[in-house]
């Protein structure tokens, strides 16, 4: 009975996604602007869910719950605390000004926005290379994480290779025909599913474990250290401080997030997104934290990577098989909503910023190449996810930090008229090299002064931008006017 129901639910879920793809293709125009940016016409709910669903990965439910299992309630503040405020704040700080320039000059990606501000093809190229360099391994790791979770939750019935194939294949079904519009519509559907089911799952598990108060009381008796952050060495204050520079400020630099902000219809849409984003982030990570901590007393004794399976194990041990099916759909929804957006964004970068360096083509041809490249990148990502080369995984380990240290150049470009292309190039390349030297342990650990490498690299990026910009010629008045003239009109009404 539950097998039939399970197959039915999963089939229904896939049918909805395919339907969205077919309908999206019907209403889409065959222009580059429509395929990659939905004609810059996304409303508040669409932008909100597109950003939120792309932001939430398998780590949220699987990895974070595993981390909370070993760390306690402190995992909540450590991983998502600062993000709750700063991620939506960066939608204002960087997103709004970039959106204004996008509307005015037709910019659609970071290489276009920042290459345009500095009037430099080299800045655009460095942005392109770094974004592809960090996004591709991150995409592969997302597929690996999602496929492992999918295999775990099906108890190995669906093997890893098939899980990867299903996840990538279904993503392509609606992304190829409908582009950004297809991924955004499925994000609304999938985001609503995983938020709703995650909350229901929390309540069902609380009930199965004797109630919210009872399970918390059990933790206080059997594992009181879970309540005290000072007893968890992994979240010591210096790590806590450094981690604020890892994931929270990286989000706006992810090309898939940046593009979705440029696709917003109006300033009001972005305001609403920034306003309510903190609550959505706090809710989904709150559920994940509680599940992990509860798991530490409900199923004690898991070590290392085994703890990452705590959510499927809780469902398996304490709830009916129907919940396993719902859990499966949640994992699929979370994984696919981030993978499809990453796939589309790398395709967008190559189609819009790399290919035109060699050959100019029409808008319609760009869409054609975009579709071809989607398949190429998906096939490459699938192959790498099967082989799992160590080099790719080690780059993915510091991809978030790599994105974070690009932020000072983005902020400098949008707020400091004296910043120039020389400063931007140096501040993009130098900290990226230093990050590699630290993460690959070529430089000794003491050179980071006890912080995670991302913090000194971030400071280096700021210093490099300022020093090199001051040591080289200032941008021309015309170039500054092109960007800051727009901002003056918006923020000061034309005055200062």
């Amino acid at each position, binding site marked *: 009975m539950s097998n039939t129901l399970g197959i039915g639910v999963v089939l229904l879920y896939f049918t909805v996604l395919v339907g969205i793809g077919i309908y999206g293709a019907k209403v889409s125009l065959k222009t580059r*602007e429509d395929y990659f940016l939905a004609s810059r016409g996304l409303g508040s709910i669409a932008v909100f869910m597109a950003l939120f669903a792309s932001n939430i990965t398998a780590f949220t439910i699987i990895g974070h719950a595993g981390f909370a299992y070993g760390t306690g309630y402190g995992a*909540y*503040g450590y991983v998502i605390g600062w993000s709750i405020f700063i991620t939506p*704040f960066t939608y204002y700080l960087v997103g709004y000004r970039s959106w204004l320039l996008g509307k*005015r000059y037709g910019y659609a990606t970071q290489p276009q926005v920042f290459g345009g501000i500095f009037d430099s093809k080299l800045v655009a190229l460095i942005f392109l290379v770094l974004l592809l360099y960090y996004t591709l391994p991150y995409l592969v790791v997302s597929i690996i994480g999602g496929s492992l979770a999918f295999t775990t939750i099906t108890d190995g019935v669906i093997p890893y290779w098939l899980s990867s194939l299903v996840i990538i294949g279904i993503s392509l079904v609606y992304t190829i025909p409908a582009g950004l519009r297809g991924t955004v519509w499925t994000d609304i559907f999938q985001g609503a599913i995983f938020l709703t089911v995650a909350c229901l799952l929390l309540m069902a598990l609380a009930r199965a474990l004797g109630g919210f108060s009872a399970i918390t009381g059990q933790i206080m008796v059997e594992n009181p250290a879970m309540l005290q*952050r000072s007893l968890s060495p992994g979240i010591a204050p210096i790590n806590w401080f450094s981690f604020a520079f890892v994931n929270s400020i990286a989000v706006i630099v992810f090309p898939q997030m940046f593009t979705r902000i440029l696709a917003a219809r109006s300033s009001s849409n972005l305001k609403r997104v920034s306003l309510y984003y903190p609550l959505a982030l706090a809710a989904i990570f709150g559920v994940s934290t509680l599940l992990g901590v509860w798991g530490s007393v409900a199923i004690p004794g898991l070590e290392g990577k085994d703890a990452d399976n705590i959510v499927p194990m809780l469902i398996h041990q304490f709830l009916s098989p129907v919940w396993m099916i719902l859990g499966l759909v949640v994992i699929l929804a979370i994984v696919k909503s981030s993978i499809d957006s990453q796939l589309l964004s790398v395709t967008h970068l190559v189609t819009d910023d790399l290919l035109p360096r060699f050959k100019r083509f029409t808008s319609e041809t760009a869409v054609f190449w975009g579709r071809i490249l989607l398949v190429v990148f998906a096939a490459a990502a699938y192959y790498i996810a099967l082989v799992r080369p160590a080099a790719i995984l080690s780059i993915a380990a510091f991809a978030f930090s790599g994105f974070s240290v690009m932020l000072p150049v983005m902020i400098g470009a949008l707020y400091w008229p004296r910043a120039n292309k020389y400063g931007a190039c140096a501040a993009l390349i130098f900290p990226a090299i230093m990050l590699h030297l630290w993460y690959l342990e070529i430089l000794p650990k003491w050179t980071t002064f006890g912080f995670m490498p991302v913090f000194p690299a971030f400071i280096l990026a700021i210093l490099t931008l300022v020093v090199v910009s001051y040591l080289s010629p200032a941008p021309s008045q015309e170039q500054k006017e092109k960007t800051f003239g727009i901002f003056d009109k918006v923020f000061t009404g034309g005055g200062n």
Partner: protein
Amino acid sequence: MSFKVRLALVSLIVLIMFILHNSFWLWDLDDRVPLLFGFMPFAFSFYVGYSILALIAMRIIIRLAWPDPPAEVLEPHRGEGHLE
């Protein structure tokens, strides 16, 4: 109020939120503050409150320093960028 003053106030809000997030001196309260709603210890409930504070902070920032653009600014500027 000039936009520079508004931007300074926004920076102050960001600084306060950062200090609150890194308020290590409050960690001593983790096992002393009663559970919120009977199941949220301080290490958890602090961030439930922080998320509401973040919403309020964003509301203030939007009012202070996020004006809507005049229509002329959004007029596409032909000949620049990557317009269709």
